[in-house]
């Protein structure tokens, strides 16, 4: 069974690296500072990654937060599979690991971390999943890449890079932990589309 978030690569497409390892590291450092600025410190923060690529990103953000403020920042993962609105459209999917740090999420400020913000449906599912795990004081959203094309009224509080894309393009975030290198890759289909682009 294929994980819902493993998008098959477009065949024969033109690949372009949008962010390299250095860009990603700098974006995550900036996001970390913005989180602390908004939260006025690391008090009450819980960082939760959305599997799969969001989890290592969340760990890096939490490590950075802890380094800046010199206090430990709880980090975990929240699987959205069973809360997805397209669950019934495909064969049953394997579940990803949900890990809620000790201390839970009640009354905490939860920062969700995802790799790519696209339709917003995954985040909707994550919000529902959070609801079953407790009642956070506030929920914020950090995304490494915001590629637009939202289908729900959801926006990110912290964005690594706003990347205007066409619907038929594909944005993939590669992380050291799973892919052996850090990069954000934009793939356009080989055949140029006749339809107008969004920008």
């Amino acid at each position, binding site marked *: *069974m*294929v994980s*819902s*978030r493993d*998008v*098959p690569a477009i065949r024969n497409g033109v690949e372009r690296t949008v962010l390299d390892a250095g860009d990603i590291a700098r974006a995550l450092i900036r996001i970390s500072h913005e989180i602390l600025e908004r939260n006025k410190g690391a008090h009450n923060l819980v960082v939760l990654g959305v599997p799969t690529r969001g989890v290592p990103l969340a760990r890096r953000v939490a490590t950075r937060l802890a380094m800046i403020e010199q206090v430990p920042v709880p980090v975990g993962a929240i*699987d959205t599979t*069973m*809360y997805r609105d*397209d*669950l*019934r*459209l*495909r*064969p*049953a*999917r*394997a*579940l*990803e*690991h*949900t890990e809620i740090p000790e201390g839970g999420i009640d009354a905490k400020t939860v920062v969700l971390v995802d790799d790519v913000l696209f339709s917003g449906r995954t985040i909707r599912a994550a919000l*529902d999943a959070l609801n*079953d*795990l*407790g009642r956070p004081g506030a929920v914020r959203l950090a995304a490494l890449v915001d590629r637009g094309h939202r289908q729900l009224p959801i926006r990110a509080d912290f964005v690594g890079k706003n990347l205007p894309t066409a619907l038929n393009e594909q944005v993939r975030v590669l992380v050291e932990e799973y892919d052996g290198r850090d990069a954000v890759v934009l793939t356009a289909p080989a055949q140029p589309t006749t339809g107008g682009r969004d920008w």
Partner: protein
Amino acid sequence: MKKHLLSTGDLSRDDALLILDTATEMRAIADRPIKKSPALRGRTIVNLFFEDSTRTRISFEAAGKRLSADVINFAAKGSSLSKGESLKDTALTLEAMGADAVVIRHGASGAPHRLATSGWIHSSVVNAGDGTHEHPTQALLDAFTMRRHLGDLEGCRVAVVGDVLHSRVARSNALLLATLGADVTLVAPPTLLPVGIESWPVATSYDLDATLPKSDVVMMLRVQGERMQDAFFPTRREYSRRYGLDARRLATMPQHALVMHPGPMVRGMEISADVADSARSVIVEQVTNGVAVRMAVLYLLLGGFTGPGRTDPAALEVPA
């Protein structure tokens, strides 16, 4: 995953590991403030029990409810079955009610297979124990419990002791554990080993004392008196002496060894009370794990697309 779960022999190694890994996540739901997931919202599961059962029926009911499915319990006693209705007519009734899955326990070996392949119903069929044939979810929860304590089961030595002849648990476990790479030894008096045992992927022994010191897990089986029409051993006392697990025998096992029993157990017969209650016994934990494993099975069978063509997942891939 296939559409039905009828036998552990149908599970590939990947299928089995997928179920066990999914069960690990499902088990965590039990520790949460809201012990529920919406995964099977709007699905209907019918528990069709032709034989008495406490833990299996309750376990399937809890599993279905934790996944937000509508669970209908259907016991043969007090239903039209006691008026002489056939399995086919019962199945047609369930189909007309729109059941998405039927969990069936039946005294006749092969009844779930008949239900799944007859074309009477379109729902998934889960075998919850058929005669002396199979009980796949019990084997899965046993494997899940072993994995939690012992890690990977590759090379793990498991002794299954007692009434193998009448045990559906023994057959399901032998097939599943072989798939997972464990070494299974069935220990029983010659009269309680089934004909054709040489074709099973297991070793056999008549000597419990020789097997225990080289086993990581010992699984005791109940002597199923209700299925016995002949005398299979001289006296209960002699059986207990030769094939019962007591503290003396437990002491000959490795320190990390687990004691398991699918239940219901008869204390003083196949297992002594002090062993059943000892720290090495995971019998109560098996029940807890049963709910998680059944949640995993129901989720994997019913959680995704269940319409026509479900056997070809590639055809259903929609662009992300």
